[in-house]
């Protein structure tokens, strides 16, 4: 039954569930009890009535034996008149063995129903009447019959009375049950409702320091204990987490400050080292130039070759120091943000490149009005480096082709510069942006290998990403986001 009833009341409050259960139980019990009582009355009432009547009739019948034996109907009638005491009886007849009516009693002041004489002994209910027939025995011999007709209105009115009482009791008991159960259900429902309300408020306000007050040592009390314990644990864990987060934050701030300090020191160190390296280098360069110019006739060919090499090395070192200084400057320079037209910027850069190599033919495809947000000076350096690389690595192609445009990568706008130059092996893609890392011989393509490192720093300062794709001999594509 439970799996039928339970879903029907699934959304009913626990308070009403308890009231309903108590009401249903008490009402059902009462209905059953009243029903059993009424059923007993309905079944046993007529039987009892018949038995009472039979006892009466037996006595009366016995008292008429002499009257019958000595054929004295008036005496029999006198005896029968004792039935007056039982107002339900309206007719009593005595028949002799030959079937003749011997004596009759009729309820005074009443019309009577005169049933046909019945030879059937025992009682039966006919309509609203109880008909009872008994033999009259004298000395073990049947000398006649007595037939009594009694109305049963009394019995029915008694039953109606019982029914009325049962109804009144049922209603009164239901009212009492309702009052009692709606009062007593609080013993169970209140702690649960209190718990539920508190749980809800905790989940809304996230205040885990609240505790549910306990009202008993029953299962609900245990539940509240467990709930409070859980809250305690959550509260403690929260505290621990908060403490951890706070200390973590503190540590991050500390570390960041440390890192910034270290970085600054490192930059300053790099700068001063680079700067300080220049002076001795300049003196090596100056004196080797003096040797070249003033003592060239005193040197043989090997000596001249060595001096040339010293000079080339010092110039290369000077270039390296310049590059290092540039790289550190880019990290330190103040940044501003504004709208930049990359297409125009690219065109200017390409024009400069064309001017420096007027003999080269190249196909330039620039998507018009590619806009970006960023520092125009830094972006120009970055774009110049990327386009310069493209220009440099397409120098050996029959017709170099350089493209600038935008594309969509995973829902994000990315800029790209594509060329059909010598490309690179994807296995070394990670090394492209490391300072002083080169994938090609310096003799073939000049450069210190600082360019893409600078580009990566600039893009990083714009909080963007840069990556490259390439195939050896077929060109490379550089993507970046800003």
């Amino acid at each position, binding site marked *: 039954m439970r799996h039928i009833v339970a879903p029907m009341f699934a959304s009913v409050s626990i308070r009403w569930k308890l009231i309903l259960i108590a009401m249903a139980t008490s009402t059902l019990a009462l209905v059953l009890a009243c029903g059993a009582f009424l059923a007993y009355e309905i079944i046993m009432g007529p039987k009892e009535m018949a038995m009472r009547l039979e006892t009466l009739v037996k006595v009366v019948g016995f*008292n008429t*034996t*002499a*009257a019958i*034996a*000595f*054929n*004295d*109907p*008036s*005496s029999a*009638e006198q005896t029968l008149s004792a039935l007056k005491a039982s107002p339900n009886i309206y007719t009593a007849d005595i028949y002799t063995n030959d079937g*003749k*009516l011997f*004596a*009759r009693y*009729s309820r*005074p002041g*009443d*019309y*009577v*129903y*005169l*049933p*046909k004489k019945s030879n059937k002994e025992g009682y039966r209910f006919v309509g609203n009447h109880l008909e009872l027939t008994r033999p009259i025995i*004298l*000395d*073990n011999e049947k000398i006649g019959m007595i037939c009594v007709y009694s109305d049963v209105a009394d019995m029915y009115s008694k039953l109606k009375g019982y029914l009325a009482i049962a109804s009144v009791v049922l209603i009164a008991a239901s009212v009492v049950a309702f009052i009692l159960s709606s009062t007593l259900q609080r013993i169970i429902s209140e702690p649960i409702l209190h718990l539920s309300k508190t749980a809800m408020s905790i989940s809304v306000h996230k205040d885990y320091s609240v505790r549910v007050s306990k009202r008993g040592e029953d299962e609900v009390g245990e539940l509240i204990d467990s709930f409070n314990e859980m809250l305690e644990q959550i509260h403690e864990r929260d505290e621990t987490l908060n403490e951890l987060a706070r200390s973590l934050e503190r540590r991050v701030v500390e570390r960041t400050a440390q890192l910034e300090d270290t970085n600054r020191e490192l930059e300053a160190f790099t700068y001063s080292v680079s700067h300080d390296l220049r002076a001795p280098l300049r003196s090596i360069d100056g004196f080797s130039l003096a040797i070249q110019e003033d003592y060239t006739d005193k040197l043989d060919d090997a000596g001249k070759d060595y001096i040339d090499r010293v000079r080339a090395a010092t110039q290369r070192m000077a270039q390296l120091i310049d590059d290092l200084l540039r790289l550190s400057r880019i990290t330190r320079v103040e940044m501003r943000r504004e709208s930049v037209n990359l297409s125009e910027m690219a065109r200017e850069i390409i024009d400069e490149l064309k001017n420096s190599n007027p003999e080269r033919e190249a196909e330039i495809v620039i998507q018009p009005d590619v806009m970006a947000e960023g520092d125009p000076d830094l972006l120009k350096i970055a774009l110049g480096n990327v386009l310069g690389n493209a220009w440099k690595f397409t120098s050996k192609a029959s017709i170099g082709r350089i493209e600038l445009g935008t594309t969509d990568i995973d829902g994000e706008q990315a800029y790209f510069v594509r060329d059909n130059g010598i490309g690179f092996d994807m296995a070394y893609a990670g090394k492209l942006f490391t300072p002083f890392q080169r994938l090609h011989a310096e003799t073939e393509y000049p450069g210190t290998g600082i360019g893409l490192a600078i580009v990566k720093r600039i893009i990083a300062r714009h909080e963007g990403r840069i990556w490259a794709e390439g195939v050896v001999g077929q060109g490379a594509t550089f993507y970046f986001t800003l």
Partner: protein
Amino acid sequence: MEVLMRGKILINILIMVVFSTMPADAATEYDVKAAFLLNFAKFVDWPDSSFTGGDSPVVIGVLGDDPFGSALDNTVRNEKVKGRKLVVKRSKQLNDLKGSHILFVSSSEQSRLGAILRETSDWHTLTVGDVQGFANRGGVINFIIRDKKIGFEINTAAANRAGLKISSQLLKLAKII
């Protein structure tokens, strides 16, 4: 089914009773009296000492000229009262009928009634008479005509003297002396 007023019923009953019980001739009168003798036995208790054994019969004595003819024999034949058979004895001599439980004294004995009643006064015998004044003179029961019907009167003092217990039902029907 018929519904009648109570008064009419009573009249009907009365008419019915009167006609059905009125003696039509002498023979039927003694048929009725024979039946009454038998029924008396049913409403009277004798002391145990009056019976010789548990199944010894109830003896009905007829003293003097027998007015019943075969009626009494026919009536008691195959009948039993309280488990006892009934036998009829007839005699002109009172002594022959000593030990009878019921002694019917015929109207032929009217002249020596005093002697008979004196003699039987210490017997445990239900004396039944058929002459006027029988009960008044010490007999226990006497047949009379009441309301044109055969009735009887009972001398309760005589019954007590004889050690007989007469049912209240029977007393109710009788004229008590």
